[in-house]
């Protein structure tokens, strides 16, 4: 139902389209640059003017997945010939693949940290959104003494600078053996996201007419059944929107991941920048790591985008 559109109105609209496109391009330029760098040969990574046309390479990804060190002497032609194609790419880059005492190729920390990220982010998102949904329902439907204070308390737990809790958290984790475990991070991220989740979900829950459950109650269902059969499906949009936010936060968290975990449970965010370490940064490898790491969130968000947009518009306004 468009209001009457005049010609000025129409040209304004065209202007808006152009504006949006320009802004989108500006916003995406750095990301495009990262993504393209992930496929560049090392010597084209930081050229000025930036290299736009180039032969895409896969070597950044090979390097990303292997442990390497600087070549001190060039490989012998035999060595070079005997090496598999991907190892030659590393040789070409003036590096060699580090092998273990038994001669096995050593993986870089990336794959395992990527897996850790997946485990930690998915589990904590499920937990935070799950608990958040339950709690939001509780606050939305039942009388709770000091509800406003409790909600503020829940929100306030997100205000702590991570540095504040890092030391006591670390000491506490040490006592209970949670440091450097997946569960340790999962709990932290869950706690961190829970406040947001409760807040957001409360908005959505308030929007779902309580008549739906009451009809089910009268029809002979228990409240639990009504909750699972009626409320949850209705809240799907809100849950999706909340999940996107929680996932993004957990996926990218840096400070706790750095302090609380070592080899076993560390996630990728602290790992990617560490690739700068060896005297001269190989931007192609960092870009490759960043690019791969962006994919899961981007895909997740893209799949849920309709929920995200719709969800934000009906739940959030009331909070």
């Amino acid at each position, binding site marked *: 139902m468009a209001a009457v559109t005049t010609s000025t109105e129409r040209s304004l609209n065209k202007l808006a389209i152009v504006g949006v496109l320009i802004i989108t391009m500006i916003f995406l330029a750095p990301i495009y640059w990262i993504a393209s760098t992930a496929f560049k040969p090392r010597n084209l990574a930081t050229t000025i003017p930036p290299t736009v046309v180039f032969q895409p390479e896969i070597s950044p990804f090979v390097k990303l997945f292997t442990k390497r060190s600087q070549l001190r002497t060039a490989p012998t032609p035999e060595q070079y010939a005997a090496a598999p194609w991907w190892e030659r790419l590393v040789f070409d880059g003036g590096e060699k693949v580090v092998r273990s005492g038994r001669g096995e190729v050593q993986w870089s920390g990336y794959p395992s940290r990527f897996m850790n990220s997946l485990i930690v982010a998915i589990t904590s998102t499920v937990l935070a959104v799950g608990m958040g949904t339950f709690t939001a329902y509780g606050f939305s439907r039942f009388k709770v003494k000091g509800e406003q204070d409790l909600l503020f308390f829940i929100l306030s737990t997100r205000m702590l600078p991570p540095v504040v809790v890092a030391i006591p958290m670390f000491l506490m984790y040490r006592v209970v053996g949670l440091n450097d475990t997946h569960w340790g991070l999962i709990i932290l991220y869950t706690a961190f996201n829970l406040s947001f989740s409760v807040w957001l979900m409360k908005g959505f829950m308030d929007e779902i*007419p309580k*008549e*739906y459950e009451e009809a089910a*109650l*009268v029809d*002979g*269902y*228990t409240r639990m059944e009504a909750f699972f059969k*009626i409320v949850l499906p209705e809240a799907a949009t809100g849950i999706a929107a909340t999940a996107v936010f929680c996932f993004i936060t957990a996926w990218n968290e840096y400070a706790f991941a750095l302090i609380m975990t070592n080899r076993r449970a560390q996630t990728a965010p602290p790992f990617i920048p560490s690739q700068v370490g060896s005297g001269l940064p190989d931007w192609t490898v960092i870009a490759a790591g960043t690019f791969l790491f962006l994919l899961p969130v981007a895909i997740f968000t893209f799949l849920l985008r309709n929920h995200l947009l719709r969800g934000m518009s009906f739940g959030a306004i009331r909070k």
Partner: protein
Amino acid sequence: MAHIQLKNISKTFGNHTALTGLNLDIGDGEFFVLLGETGAGKTTTLRMIAGLEKPTEGQVFIDGVDVANWGAAERDVALVLQQYSLYPRYTVRQNLEFPLKPKIRRLPDAEIKDRVDRAARTLRIEHLLDRKTDRLSGGEMQRVSIGRAIVRKPRVFLMDEPLSALDAKLREALRTELKNLQMQLGATFLFVTHDQIEAMSMGDKVGVLNHGRIVQTGTPYEIYNNPRDTYVASFVGSPPMNLIDGKLVNGRAVMAPLNFELPFEGRAKTSGATDGRPLVFGIRPEDVYLESGAPVEARVHDVENHGVEKILTLRVGDAMLRATVPARTDVEIEQPVRFAWDPDKVVLFDKGSGINLRHAG
């Protein structure tokens, strides 16, 4: 089928009192209408019977059993609401099946199908069964909601303004349908509405609720013709009963401070109607008539043409009086007319309390 009794029910929400000392008796198989304005406490009463709300004080009996500790599921009542009683994600069939599938009274599949089909037939919604509920019209939705209630064969049907979101034609049609349905099922119905036409046309009995109290319970006829107080008098009937301050002087109704008189004798007179007592005279618009030789002169303030009849608003001094006249009556606004009333139909109310003198005794 069930007999429902509410005894001395009070309900407060925080410092807001919704109901005070409510007593209600709904007979088995009765179509009971609870009539009141928005906020009078109708819905709260209904939710209390459904078990969705607990009374602050008092007891609810279903078939003589105190159901204080029964949850909504156990009371075996069905609920039809103005909106939201259908699940938007489900098809009509799924909606109709839903009440038949809880753990406590899960029916065999064949039986479920049978009941759903029968309900659909009764309500003429068979062609809608596979449609999603968000693609139904208002009337269809309300039929499905009613269907959801009847598949259960519950002891009591509770209906919370099920028709008020519909347009006039549909309301009229569904009114008859509902009444028919209730007669067929022989079930107890508690129907809540703010629309007095619905109350009058459907109810076996009507309870008028005002500010959390039952003001009057009775048949539509009683409520209409013998309202217990001025509130009921003005609430029931469209246009409402005319209420004029005055007193009786020597068998005549003397309207003060308006200074006009009308004859008053005969059947309407009751024991409390002593001369000089400040009264309120109530007269229905249809009992006010225009006559060239009638005792009082008025001006036509407004004319509403309803087709079958016209509703005139007459102005006498500052007072407004409604009169229903045949459609053929030809009057203009601001035209002077003379009117009289049918003294037998006059209802007398005490000026102070507003109580009908016949009830006061």
